[in-house]
């Protein structure tokens, strides 16, 4: 049967990133909170040294800032390592992972348009899902978004990009 979770990875994390705080939610679900500047190095460590695969990233608007969670999957042990970080609302910036991880390309574009977080160093930070006519400063997944789409004009013709 599968291992519960690899103890070695957690030990190594503790040694390498002393600022990370680990929370084990369930046998194969681990959440790790790291400061914003450590995320890039941490993700690189998980992807290149531990052969984790980037599953997806989640952006959440919380009261004290925007939270970004990068979900990494370690397939040999079936464990999810979710890296959480908090981006303060007055400085919505974080270093992009897309330069070494093509898998992060689309999801960072999505978070950028739905939550308005800037990914520094992303090669192509244009909207992914919303229409061409959608105003770029309107972020529907934010807390203060109050059904502003109801006032938007519906465009009936657009040229193909």
């Amino acid at each position, binding site marked *: 049967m599968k291992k519960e979770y690899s103890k070695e990875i957690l030990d190594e994390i503790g040694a390498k990133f002393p600022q990370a705080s680990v929370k084990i939610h369930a046998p194969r*679900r681990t959440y790790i909170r790291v400061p914003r500047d450590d995320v890039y190095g941490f993700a690189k460590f998980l992807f290149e040294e531990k052969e984790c695969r980037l599953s997806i990233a989640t952006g959440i608007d919380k009261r004290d800032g925007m939270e970004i969670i990068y979900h990494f999957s370690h397939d040999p042990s079936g464990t999810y390592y979710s890296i959480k970080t908090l981006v303060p609302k007055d400085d919505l910036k974080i270093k992009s992972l897309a330069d070494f991880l093509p898998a992060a390309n*689309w999801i960072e574009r999505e978070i950028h348009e739905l939550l308005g977080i800037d990914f520094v160093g992303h090669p192509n930070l244009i*909207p992914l899902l919303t229409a061409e006519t959608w105003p770029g400063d309107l972020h529907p997944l934010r807390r203060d978004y109050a059904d502003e789409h109801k006032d938007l004009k519906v465009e009936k013709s657009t040229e193909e990009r």
Partner: protein
Amino acid sequence: MKRIVPIGPYHPLQEEPEFFKLIVEGEKVVDLEINIGYNHRGHEFVAQKMTWDQVTFLVERICGICSDSHPYAYVLAVEDAAHVTAPPRAQYIRTIIGELERIHSHYLWVGLAGHFIGYNTVWMWVWRYREPLLDIFELIMGNRNHYAINKVGGARRDILPEHYSKIEKYLDLLEEKNTMFTKAVLDDPVIRARLEGVGILSKEDAVAYGVLGPTARGSGYATDVRKDDPYDAYDKVDWNEIVFDEGDVLAKAKVRLLECSESIKIVRQCLRNMPDGPIETRVDEIPPGEGIGRHEAPRGEVFHYVRSDGSNMPVRHKIRAPSFMNIPSNVVAVRGYSIADAALVLAAVDPCYCCTERTVVLRNGKRELTGKDMLRLSWRKTERLRRRYRR
């Protein structure tokens, strides 16, 4: 000289509208641009305005082909957040429906892939044997698609004892036909020539793009949630993970066809070992916290993340469908192949490839080659090969 071949967003055959821009030099594809969003309905936004139970029905309508996978992953996520487990009988029921759905989805792909290379016979035959499966869904759950079998804490409907024999009977038919299809598709020299060595996705690229499901397993990257992180009844049944190293379209087709027979094996074992008992655990409230649910859908791992603040609605619900990771890998898979092969390569990840007359007139200097023409090119290539093999 570089020219642009647009594909999409509308097409008569495939499912979703999507827009591919093939950048070609002569016959060769040198690059690909993908533009999505024609199908964006804002599920994550709507989910935050619905109660926990309603979201099950909402996520079901993300995709009609994997309409069991999304609710499945969602209920697993909520169960993870609430620390409850479904009773054993419900776990077996959910596993059976999940596997039957895999068969129906893979058959759908085989049929459409057959159509793309001009083998409409494959399409008609495969879809003919898919039809009794939909009847079984209707028998158990009352609808041909959108089954609504999953519920937080269990299953919504029971599989009645009188249904067992009908499912068994269908599996017998399917087992015979599946062997026939596998042989017919894989032994046909023309199909082999069309699929072999086309659209190769190397293992390194597969890892970097984080591809999932048959796309990854066809490239030698063994990722399968059912093995890695077994849930429900998957660790109580015996089956094999199908992995091929070639990375071409043929490998992906092989993975899908052979997976069908594994699915038949799983369903049979589940029916045999199904325990009696209740089909649902009562879940009164979802405590504050977060949960992750993963389910191996026909196209790869479906991932759901929910966060609760103790109220009756999710605070955040993140949905990741496998195609979100698989489609970007087309950019490397299609590079270097001819336009006639592009139709097939783009379809190989089982995405939603669109091939029709474009509804937009292109600017000067760019050649207009529509999806229909691409299909015709693809068919012509098969025709040529067929003639060569006849000799």
